[in-house]
């Protein structure tokens, strides 16, 4: 396979200004603005080559993200951003692949893809802006809406048990799982950074308020609204007695238990583990196959196959 590329010219520093594209179409006050802002700030820190950043999404208010970021981007169909992004990631190890979307997109229509992207450990970073409601379609029950939530599809209150995103991600085998809150910019940025540095399928659930259809949903996790933003105390492995009680992020059972905490729960990295990525595994298969065929050219390989069919 051959690649035609133009040699590199000296680069301009990536700034929020350069990274800003269309003005977001979100409602004023929508939590997603902060998620976008934190993304710009984190990209400023990483300084990836501009052309190698890819921003992908499904459908929903939150999934409009790619239009607002000046990078290569793709606005795909509802629920299928993960397999779409998997194609991009697996074919192109040189790219930084980001996926953005909502709770309906990620946990409902795309729920099965999330499980399989996670178990395959595809190398990408996925930010789910969870607002506990369908925003774009104007207030229907979402898979994370709490029981009792009054929506247009549950006028007397939602009755179905909501999904617990952290539990879903732990059981499906995601290798980096974090939870954050859109009002906590610094924490959000920290989660972004750790997710990006993680080699594998990294997912952040970011509670991001839909001011239009579920105002106040996350006040309980926002100190400025009288709530509590409690952080996971991660194990330091320093041998001290207090370290005993800290959370071991490589312990999936412990992560599962943390996910059971009473609303608004706890924030930070629930789980983080190094496991071979799908990208590495597939590249490994190629390497072995190439060794076995002694790096034969495409034509030689094909000719050999045809000779066998004579």
């Amino acid at each position: 396979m051959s690649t035609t590329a133009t040699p590199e010219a000296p680069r301009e520093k990536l700034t929020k200004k350069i990274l800003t594209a269309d003005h977001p179409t979100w409602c004023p006050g929508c939590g997603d603005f902060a998620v976008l802002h934190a993304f710009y700030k984190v990209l400023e820190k990483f300084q990836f080559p501009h052309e190698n950043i890819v921003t992908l999404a499904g459908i929903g208010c939150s999934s409009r993200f790619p239009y607002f970021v000046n990078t290569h981007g793709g606005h795909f169909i509802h629920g299928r951003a993960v397999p779409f992004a998997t194609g991009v990631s697996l074919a192109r190890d040189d790219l930084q692949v980001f996926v953005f979307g909502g709770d309906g997109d990620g946990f409902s229509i795309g729920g099965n893809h999330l499980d399989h992207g996670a178990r395959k450990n595809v190398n990408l970073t996925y930010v789910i802006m969870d607002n506990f409601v369908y925003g774009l379609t104007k207030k229907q029950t979402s898979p994370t809406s709490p029981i009792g939530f009054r929506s247009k599809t549950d006028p007397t209150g939602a009755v179905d048990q909501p999904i617990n995103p952290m539990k879903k991600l732990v059981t499906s085998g995601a290798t980096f799982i974090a939870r954050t809150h859109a009002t906590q910019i610094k924490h959000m940025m920290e989660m972004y950074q750790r997710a990006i540095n993680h080699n594998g399928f990294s997912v952040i659930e970011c509670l991001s308020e839909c001011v239009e259809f579920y105002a106040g949903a996350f006040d309980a996790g926002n100190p400025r609204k009288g709530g509590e933003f409690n952080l996971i105390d991660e194990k330091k492995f320093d041998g001290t007695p207090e370290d005993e009680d800290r959370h071991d992020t490589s312990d999936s059972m412990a992560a599962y238990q943390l996910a059971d905490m009473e609303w608004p729960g706890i924030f930070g990295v629930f789980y983080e583990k190094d496991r071979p990525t799908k990208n590495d595994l597939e590249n490994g298969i190629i390497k072995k196959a190439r060794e076995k065929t002694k790096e034969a050219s495409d034509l030689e390989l094909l000719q050999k196959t045809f000779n066998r069919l004579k």
Partner: protein
Amino acid sequence: MSESKQKKENVNDVVIRLAGNSQDGIQTIGGFLARLAGRSDQEVITYMTIPSTISGGPSIFQVRIGSGEVLSAGDSADFLLAFYQHSYEEHLSFLKEGGVLIYDTEYVKPDVDDKRFVYVGVPITGLTIEAMGGSAKDKGKNIFVLGLLARMFSLNVEKLRTLMSEKLLNKGEDVLRNVLVAFDAGYGYQVDNVLDRYYAFEPSKQVDGKSQVTMDGNQAMTLGLITAGIRYGAGYPITPWSSIMEALRSELPKYGGKFIQVEDELAAISMAIGFSYSGNLAVTGSSGPGISLKMEALGWAVMAEIPVILINVQRGGPSTGLPTSVEQSDLLQAIYGSHGDTPRVVLSPKNVEDCFYVALEAARIAKKYSTPVIILSDQALATRIEAFDEPNLEELVVDPQLNLKTRPSDYLPYSMDKITQHAPPGTIIEGGKYPVVTGLEHDEAGHPSGNPELHMKMTAKRREKLQILANEIDIPEVHGAQEGDILFVGWGSTYGPLREAVLGNTKFAKKLGHLHIRHLHPLPNGLETIFSKFRQIFVVEMNDSGIYGYGQLATLLRARYCNSSIRSINKTDGLPFKVREILEGAKRLSGDAVSNYSAYPYE
């Protein structure tokens, strides 16, 4: 061979039907015969039925070998080999009068008083056990039969042995030795005690010295994709598509590529589109239900103008339908499926060889026009084996290119003046404004827009590129009469029987022509000129005649050409067309007095 008592009979076109149960390995016999024919420059076509239950059941494998052109698997058999009583009873009606029934005397008790046939009883099971030992009872029967046929048809035993050792060597010397023991037992059987003649194929007319390759349609398609430079893909298993994905999964890594088995067909097409968006034209495929699942994402690829190849190995529908039977009932879905105005390209291979070439054409078009291309194959093409001239690989092989050349600052992903050619991620855009590919209606830069005028323009842009493509497609040649009474129009795997119907010596009508359409959407321009030269146009398809009396292609052709002489010959029995069925259909529609039909268009 002791030729003392036996007469030699030269043959140039022989249909052998092997009937047994699927676990008897009759596909193996058929496969070897087909490969041998290929190596001997004979033409060959096979046909098989597979029971859809995994525990097996009655199944057949039919081989037609000819020294001249072989177009179909044959309407009836010259030889029937029956392993069981049910095989005999089920398939005797398929044997020609004067045909030879070879049967296992242990299981089959034919009605030998029926003097229409020649009976050759062989204790197949007993002799196989004798040769190989009791434990091998059901294993070696197929190879014994291969030996028997080798003797009856004076086949080239050396070539057959080579084929068997090539195929079986990796299973160990023991296995190969056992197989050869069974083969020799069959070959050594004194068939002259029960048959007064042996047969010999006339030397092939093929003199161009090109080697032949022998394979089934799915193999040819897979190799076509690889030759076309396709290195990425994703899929989910379903019969009869699976063997393409299995082969790509094991072959592509050798070429530095990846084929991913995913959780469902929605993911499969989404991932393939992701690969393509990343700059590597990719393939996905399926059959029946799986194709339905892909329709939403297909529409996205049309809207976003991302190229992708979608293979549909058609089977009987709707729903789970007839998983192991053939049908051509997905044409309208291929052309119109998905919501909205979604122009895309639809191609269909006419035979196994064309499965190889159509993949190349699909890749060419997908890249040039940045469009999804659907290939409509079918169950019959997927599973049948044909021999064809080895393609000129050196000339055809495509080096997959990832084009990341910097684009100028005025780069627009959806420019009105050009056919879209995307800049894959990783491409520097001068001036630093990066594009978003999108399924929302958009302006030239890819910004979402619901502007009515823009939607009209963009709808036209997506349609017009296919109109440009239509100009570039050659008008297909007409076989048989170039003008006259009846023009048969077909697509896909009906090519062989249609061609045979026209070329075959039939007393039925004087002037029969045959037009086969490979580019189904867009259609080539100029078909109306061909249509105007025939009194009647019969579109032959393996799909239902529908509520209004016309099959799927016929419906389209009538809509486009407003030509009332276009009518339909359909069937939905899940089996390939027989030549006889085509001619009978034509008779039924036109009456015997074809030339008196009143709608003769140019008189």
